[in-house]
């Protein structure tokens, strides 16, 4: 029950089927990583979980703590505890980070209840310190003119503030130098615990040196073709994805 579960998911965009029968469960308290080559459908999975309107779910189920979330709007999924750290976060000109996050936190309160400003700022500053973000950050417009690293830090700041039940991190390592990668990873690691399930989507092993997963899944051409422990990531780093792609084309899960 206490898990994000995806069963036999098929997803298409336009005519093209991108996810082709994917099954995966992420229980609370665990960190799972999905690795795969470009075009394997990793980012599509992230967006479908969050309810992006461009993708069409053909069949399958997505449940969060036993509840089917397929019919929920993106904002409802979010308020029920699903968080997506975007690979390419959008810019929102004129809206400060403080105000944006405040609106997001407020959206989670029962109707009629007002956010307590002092508590909110105390928490915000605490999380910013953790992510080594300067206080002046709060008054900057969301993602506008941010460097790649700043954008990703901002995603993790939101993750930390919203404290979801399940978090999907889509290519959070892309565009980060090693120092930023460490800071962002520290932020994520600080979140780990029995009350959150985390799915890390990445192309490279590098991120998994810092956010060490409990399980690693290999995704190729819209399916999980292999699952294993964290050592699987190292193996992929060494051997690459090549063997898997051929197998996936045959339509059979690979057996290494």
């Amino acid at each position: 029950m206490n898990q994000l579960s995806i069963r036999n998911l098929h997803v298409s965009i336009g005519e093209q089927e991108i996810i082709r029968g994917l099954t995966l469960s992420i229980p609370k308290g665990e960190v799972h990583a999905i690795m795969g080559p470009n075009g394997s459908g990793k980012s599509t999975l992230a967006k479908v979980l969050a309810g992006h309107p461009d993708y069409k779910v053909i069949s399958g189920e997505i449940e969060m703590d036993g509840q089917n979330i397929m019919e929920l709007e993106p904002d409802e999924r979010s308020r029920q505890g699903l968080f997506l750290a975007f690979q390419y976060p959008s810019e929102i000109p004129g809206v400060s980070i403080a105000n944006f996050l405040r609106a997001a936190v407020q959206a989670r309160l029962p109707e009629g209840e007002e956010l307590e400003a002092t508590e909110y700022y105390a928490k915000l500053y605490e999380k910013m310190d953790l992510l080594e973000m300067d206080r002046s950050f709060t008054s900057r417009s969301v993602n506008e003119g941010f460097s790649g690293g700043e954008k990703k830090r901002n995603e993790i700041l939101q993750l930390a503030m919203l404290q979801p039940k399940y978090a999907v991190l889509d290519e959070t390592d892309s565009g980060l130098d090693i120092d930023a990668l460490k800071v962002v990873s520290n932020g994520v690691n600080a979140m780990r615990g029995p009350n959150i399930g985390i799915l890390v989507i990445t192309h490279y092993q590098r991120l998994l040196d810092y956010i060490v997963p409990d399980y690693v899944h290999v995704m190729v051409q819209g399916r999980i073709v292999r699952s294993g422990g964290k050592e699987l990531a190292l193996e992929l780093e060494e051997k690459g994805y090549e063997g898997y792609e051929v197998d996936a084309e045959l339509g059979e899960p690979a057996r290494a």
Partner: protein
Amino acid sequence: MVKEASPLEIERNVGNFAYPETHTHDAGVGLTEKTIHYISDIKDDPDWVREFRLNAYKTFLSKPMPTHWASKDLEAIVFDNIRYYLSGGVQPKRNWEDVPDDVKRTFERLGIPEQERKFLAGVEAQFDSEAVYSNIKKAVGEQGVIFVGSREGLKDHPEIFRKWFGKVIPTGDNKFSALNSAVFSGGSFIYVPPGVKVKHPLQAYFRINAENFGQFERTLIICDEGSELTYMEGCTAPKFNTATLHSAVVELVALKGAKIQYITVQNWSSNVFNLVTKRGLAHEDAEVKWIDCNIGSRLTMKYPGVIMKGRRARGEVLSIALAGDGQHQDTGAKMVHAADETTSNIISKSISIGEGRATYRGLVQIPKHLKNCKNNTECDALLINSTSRTDTYPAITVRGTGNSVQHEASVSQVSAEQIFYMQQRGLTEAQAMSLSVNGFVNDLVRQFPMEYSVELKRLIELEMEGSVG
């Protein structure tokens, strides 16, 4: 002439409400010389005002509708179906206690916060065509500031009133300024003595509250040498089936070194034609600043202007227009440089939703013989839907050397990805939209007084609620 209005069935949405009213004076529908005399009789106009009205009436008749450049929708106005004067016969009140409960309820429905209701102690509120509530803050009165209705202004202070009335905006400026000059009633007259800096903004709330009732208020503000004033007006109107015409004239005079800031936040119901002429005259070292927010209405045509008559005078227009589905906001600014070293600044932001249309028209004139004049114009348009429309018509005439102009324009659209991003953080689609829109206007809104920026934000939220889903 007592007319009993029948109880009205109104959707009780915010801004769209009305209370049954009785009107003591009613000029009936249509406009003839008789109507003008009727208004002049009731208002007990001095002869010069009656004559002024009659002349304006002739000018109004002789002027064509400006449909050769403006929206053809103007043709939908049937002047014969409009009531040009309606009055509850209530005299301006001095104390909050004396304000009729109906009016108080209206203020409540407008959602004016407690803080602001207290502020109403210094408010000139127009309810239908007469100010039913007018209480000048004691301190303001002690400073020698005159803050009265236009009728009292022309009667009790003719020496100042007559000198400037109709001078900034001549009767024949356009068809609607002529109409206003013929039938005006209500509006404010303010005089600030030399050197007096009015600390608190003076405010006026007014709304249209009778079907087919055109509102023609007339405001004249004079700031004497070195004085400063901020004036704020806000309107909401109840929703009726037939078109309603609002045609105001606002004239500002800033004498040497004076500063006037005039702030408007309007939320007209979507059947109102809002055709307003606003202009300020800035003398040497004086500054006139218009902050203008137009929300709602069927068609708004408004181009606040500043004539910079004296050396180093400054003119500024900051405007925000929000055109909802089926609405047309045709707004902009006029900057007429008439002395050396004058500077003007125009920042216009418009938002078009659904089939809404926002038009920017800007006129900037710097003649050849002037030196060191500057104009900066920025207009940014935000389109919410693919069916939304925006047009920009800048007319910039700069002659001579040593004068400079800058013009920047941008059009952007709220992207689906941006909305998805915000929804992923838990905001509904409508909340996401309104946050985007608020972000777009944010740098302008920051220059507003606090309570107005809060109100504007609320109006934008309401507008976005209705446009999504």
